């Protein structure tokens, strides 16, 4: 048998970027470029949290704080005046509050998808972006949870949402999708927070061990919980991470399904449809990846993380965005088809009204942003052009907000009886509250990039080629077990020594 020599892979460079997006099946392109060592990875990531505060960060943080202040003002107006400060009316008794809720909770989905589902699929490229995306998830869910909390109008009674004994001796109605939502979103928020924190413990230990000041040592030290990188600890840690992924995967799919039940179980034309759960989940992942790209592209530029968040990461995210965007487009067309095919007079009118009625401009924005704009990502050249990717992500973020606006407002304002039709128009407080929720999101995000490890340092190291044990003659294992994607847990079958229990 003749052996063919494969020339070593040389990655091309263009515009200061290393292009590791090759599809040549003979190579497994590196996930960390420039041949960084373990120490280089530590320094690159820890430097983001350790270097002195930059002016650009201060300016950006001040702007975010300004918007957060605006949110505070609108909440003050809302609590001391009542929900009348919003543009909600009859029949549009649900509007910006629920639109913003669904928008933010949807954005959160990309984080869990990257951390859990891609982990189960052994997509090692997730390690460069998962910390980012998980942080984004938590901040987005905080923004989301705020809206139903304040929508109750009397926020001091928000505890009625939970099954707590109270003076009325009544319990929540467990057969209502709105209560399912309370459980789904609060479970999602707390499990995401746990997942993020567990993943961060080893990296907090890195920052603790590098800290120069006493305050940083104590601060990071408390949250690192005394982590020493013991392999007996890593063993349980990895098993726990696998279990959390397996638990978070059905959870993330269930959350937006439950959110869609809020609409789908009602009898309103435009809402009463079985396609909602899968189409909402796809839309959530779509919008979430757009937000991850919007945050990750500037971050890798500013923080010098181009060798860790590489072009391949960006390209892969674009592919996920394109695929989920197509599912969303299919969802839109299927809704129209079923409205026509059902023969229901009201369904047909609702969708005709959606496309050509008074809110047709919003429908147009939605179709342009969510269906047309991602099509440019079919081209590999465009997926590697960061300006194009940023523009598409921006459009998708806008488009996904308008999708919820279209679904909620067009269906509510014109339902069965023309005598009860009315138009909906947001007030200034509505618009300020939406802008203010971005202030909350970015305030938290800027604090995260300033003080915490923005990339999962330990995980990135574990997917580098030098992280794997190479076989030697004394090693009695079969060659197959040395594959880099070989699961760690299979070894335990052979283990017979003293160990973890």
């Amino acid at each position: 048998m003749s052996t063919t020599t494969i020339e070593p892979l040389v990655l091309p460079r263009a515009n200061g970027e290393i292009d590791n997006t090759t599809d040549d099946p003979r190579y497994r392109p590196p996930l960390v470029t420039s041949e960084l060592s373990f120490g280089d990875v530590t320094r690159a990531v820890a430097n983001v949290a350790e270097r002195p505060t930059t002016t650009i960060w201060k300016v950006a943080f001040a702007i975010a704080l300004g918007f957060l202040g605006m949110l505070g003002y609108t909440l003050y107006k809302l609590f001391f005046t009542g929900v009348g400060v919003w543009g909600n009316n009859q029949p549009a008794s649900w509007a910006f509050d629920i639109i913003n809720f669904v928008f933010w909770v949807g954005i959160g989905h990309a984080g869990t998808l990257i951390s859990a589902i891609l982990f189960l699929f052994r997509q090692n490229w997730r390690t460069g972006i998962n910390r980012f995306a998980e942080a984004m998830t938590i901040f987005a869910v905080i923004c989301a949870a705020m809206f139903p909390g304040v929508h109750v109008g009397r926020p001091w009674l928000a505890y009625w949402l939970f099954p707590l004994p109270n003076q009325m001796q009544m319990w929540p109605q467990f057969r209502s999708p709105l209560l399912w939502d309370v459980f789904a979103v609060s479970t999602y928020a707390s499990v995401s927070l746990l997942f993020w924190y567990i993943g961060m413990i080893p990296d907090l230990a890195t920052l603790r061990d590098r800290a120069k000041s006493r305050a940083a040592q104590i601060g990071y030290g408390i949250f690192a919980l005394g982590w020493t990188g013991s392999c007996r600890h890593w063993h349980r840690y990895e098993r726990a991470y696998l279990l959390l992924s397996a638990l978070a995967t059905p959870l993330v799919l269930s959350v937006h399904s439950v959110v869609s039940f809020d609409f789908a179980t009602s009898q309103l034309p435009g809402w009463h449809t079985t396609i909602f759960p899968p189409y909402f989940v796809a839309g959530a992942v779509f919008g979430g990846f757009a937000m991850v790209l919007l945050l990750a592209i500037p971050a890798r530029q500013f923080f010098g993380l181009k060798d860790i968040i590489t072009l391949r990461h960006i390209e892969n995210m674009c592919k996920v965005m394109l695929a989920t965007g197509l599912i969303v487009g299919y969802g839109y067309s299927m809704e129209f088809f079923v409205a026509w095919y059902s023969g229901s007079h009201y369904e047909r009118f609702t969708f005709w009204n959606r496309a050509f009625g008074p809110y047709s401009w919003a429908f147009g924005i939605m179709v342009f942003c969510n269906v047309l704009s991602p099509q440019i990502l079919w081209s590999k050249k465009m997926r590697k052009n960061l300006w194009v990717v940023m523009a598409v992500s921006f459009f998708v973020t806008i488009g996904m907000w308008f999708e919820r606006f279209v679904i909620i407002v067009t269906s509510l304002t014109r339902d069965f009886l023309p005598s009860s039709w009315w138009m909906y128009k947001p007030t200034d407080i509505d618009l300020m509250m939406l802008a203010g929720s971005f202030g909350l999101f970015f305030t938290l995000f800027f604090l995260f990039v300033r003080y915490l490890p923005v990339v999962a340092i330990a995980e990135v190291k574990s997917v580098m080629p030098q992280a794997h044990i190479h076989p030697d003659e004394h090693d009695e294992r079969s060659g197959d077990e040395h594959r880099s994607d070989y699961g760690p847990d299979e070894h335990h079958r052979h283990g017979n020594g003293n160990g973890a229990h």
Partner: protein
Amino acid sequence: MSTAIETYDTEVVGSDDVETPELIGLLAEFNDVDSVARAARTVRRAGFTRWDVHSPFPIHGIDYAMGIRPTRLPWIVLGAGLTGLSGGILLQWWTNAFDYPFFISGKPVWSLPANIPVIFELTILLSAFTTGLGMLALNGLPRWSNPLLKSDRFRQVTDDKFFIVIDATDKKFDEAATTKLLQEAGATAVERVED
């Protein structure tokens, strides 16, 4: 018992003797994954039981070299999941069908399909928190005071160095002989861990 390995006997750590630092183990440094894995096999073959490998990231295959048995964490999580499941059923049945029956749209007060989402969420919630907190508890964390962290050399474990720590309480431990073993196993430095 194996738990003593990672928690280091409290009688040793909490010793009142401040005057003379007590030797609690030996720390050997390695520069790469292959050498620490080879050394781990050597230490295991030499019959040590109270020892550990420390690394900046999980090394796949080191569990085998060290002879670590699989953790029982998944069984604990299964128990928590079943508790969440039955808790979710009981909560909804007791509140809506028994304590204060809710009659809505003439539907039965107890109908399982409508109760599945909450049952599912509670199952996941309990399992996930048991996974996270159970992992920490089995690892003996949080443990904010650890003599290992006093060593400047050891603090590189979260950066790019690999260590083997052999506990002084191990039956096979002998300072001179164990130092020699670690040096011959390829350690770039061997240090006393004192408390």
